[in-house]
């Protein structure tokens, strides 16, 4: 039984911050090689800054009109409602599939090479479906503990790898293409803006500074990860996929070496929150039977997963950062269109 209860907006932002961290945890040769540290930091700042800008339409709608996209859609005619619901549903399914593919790929390559990817996807989506059925309130309540766990794990990984840091002379390198490539990668957390715009109607005590604090925290996390990979892992980082996994392996605390298991835990929790919240958002947009939506959309994700593992061309499209960013742009444009139109409609009703 789902209970629609208002929960704190800060909790939602905390969950979205946890989801945003999965971007760098599952980074796999997405960043340009041979970019200088300054260029990489600039791309992190620009990318996260752009994410914050993309957040603003939903934030202003929430702050000034005390509404989210679902409230706006209720006032639209049936055709508009269907079109916009499809745009958001397709976008959220694409985003969920992007991260699900990366997660199952990482799982089978780094931990259990004998396990079939489809089985990992089935089990994972089953849990996400149940969480989505319970609603965003339950997911965000759970994520407080997951965020606490994530903080402890990151402290251990970074603290344990600090002994391997070797600061050498920085080589200036890289070009415009590399900067743009990195910028596009660091814009991928903008999915949080779309999820926020669809779920914020269930939140209260929203404050604009939550978005800036979350953005700053995410940028700091990306920057810390970049510094540790560059100066602790060095050239070793480019020898394998999923560099953060390697970073967790060089952690050393006394006799304990390597925290790959904890890395797996934080990745699992981040991707779980992301997919569960995405399916929640699709539920809210689509309306209708919540149980049916919570089953149908994970099944769609599973089918897409099968297609991606069977056909390389499908996998390339579903794993493309550029396609994801384009979709994000379209979704945010839709949010802006709806947010701008909202006040006018209210005046008409009056």
């Amino acid at each position, binding site marked *: 039984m789902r209970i629609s209860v208002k929960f704190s907006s800060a909790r939602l932002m905390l969950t979205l911050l946890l989801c945003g961290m999965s971007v760098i945890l599952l980074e796999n040769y997405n960043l340009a090689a041979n970019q200088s540290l300054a260029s990489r930091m600039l791309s992190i700042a620009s990318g996260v800054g752009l994410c914050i800008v993309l957040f603003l339409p939903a934030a202003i709608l929430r702050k000034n009109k005390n509404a989210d996209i679902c409230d706006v859609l209720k006032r639209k005619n049936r055709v508009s409602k269907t079109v916009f619901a499809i745009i958001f549903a397709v976008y959220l399914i694409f985003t969920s599939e992007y991260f699900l593919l990366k997660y199952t790929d990482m799982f089978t*390559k*780094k931990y*259990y090479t*004998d*396990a079939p990817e489809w*089985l990992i996807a089935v*089990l994972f989506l*089953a849990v996400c479906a149940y969480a989505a059925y319970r609603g965003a309130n339950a997911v965000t309540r759970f994520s407080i503990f997951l965020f606490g766990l994530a903080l402890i794990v990151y402290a251990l990984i970074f603290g344990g790898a600090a002994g*391997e840091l070797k600061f050498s002379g920085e080589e200036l390198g890289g070009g415009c293409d590399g900067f743009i490539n990195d910028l596009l990668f660091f814009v991928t957390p903008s999915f949080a803006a779309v999820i926020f715009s669809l779920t914020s109607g269930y939140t209260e005590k929203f404050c604009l500074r939550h978005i800036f604090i979350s953005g700053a925290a995410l940028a700091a996390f990306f920057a810390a990860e970049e510094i540790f990979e560059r100066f602790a*892992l*060095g*050239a*070793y980082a480019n*020898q*394998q996929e999923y560099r953060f*996994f*390697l970073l967790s*392996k*060089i952690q*050393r605390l006394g006799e304990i*070496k*390597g925290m790959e298991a904890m890395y797996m835990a934080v990745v699992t929790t981040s991707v779980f929150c992301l997919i569960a919240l995405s399916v929640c958002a699709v539920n809210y947009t689509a309306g209708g039977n919540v149980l049916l939506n919570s089953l149908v959309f994970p099944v769609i994700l599973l089918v897409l997963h099968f297609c991606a593992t069977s056909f390389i061309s499908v996998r390339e499209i579903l794993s493309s950062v550029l396609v994801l960013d384009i979709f994000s742009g379209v979704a945010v444009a839709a949010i802006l269109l709806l947010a701008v139109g909202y006040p006018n409609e209210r005046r008409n009703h009056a």
Partner: protein
Amino acid sequence: MLRKILCFALCFCILPLSGCSKARHIDSAALAETITVERRGSAKIYTFYLLSGKEKPWGIEIEADRFEEAKRLAETVYIPNMSMAKLKLMLIEQEIAEPQLFEDVAFAASDAVFSPLSYVALCDSALLGQMKKRKDLPELIEKELILIKNNNENINIDFLSVFNEFARQGSGGFEMTFVNSEKELKATRVFVKNRGFPGRE
């Protein structure tokens, strides 16, 4: 009630589907802790020393040109249940250090199963002979490596630092450890030329 039934059913389905049929039981698993590389005649021999409860070291010798080939043969032919996740030490005979050291470290860097913090050192052939008789030797060697690292910050003793030294352009070479066993077990510094990456002189 329905939720409980669904949960039990899901848990019941997970166990057989999750690959438990291919699980490696701990009592039949073979954990490789140390690897040595030496030349015998014209052949290269990789010896995998496995964790065991016996008094003498348990080593399996495999003839192979490269570490990658030796690992593949070990896993598929010679030691079916072998796991290399607990590898702590790799010893390479100094005579074949070039280019063996780079090739083996580069392979270890590309395989997720190896820890970047596993120790790697050069040694003499006498030590490799002693490895077959003394079970306590790997632990003593590790202590020597840690001791020499504490006294010399620039010395490289693990896969991570050795690989990064090979990757550093413009450097003529770097220091790593040579484990000597002529009179007593001792780790000393040795200079290794950096001709690691292809095309570099």
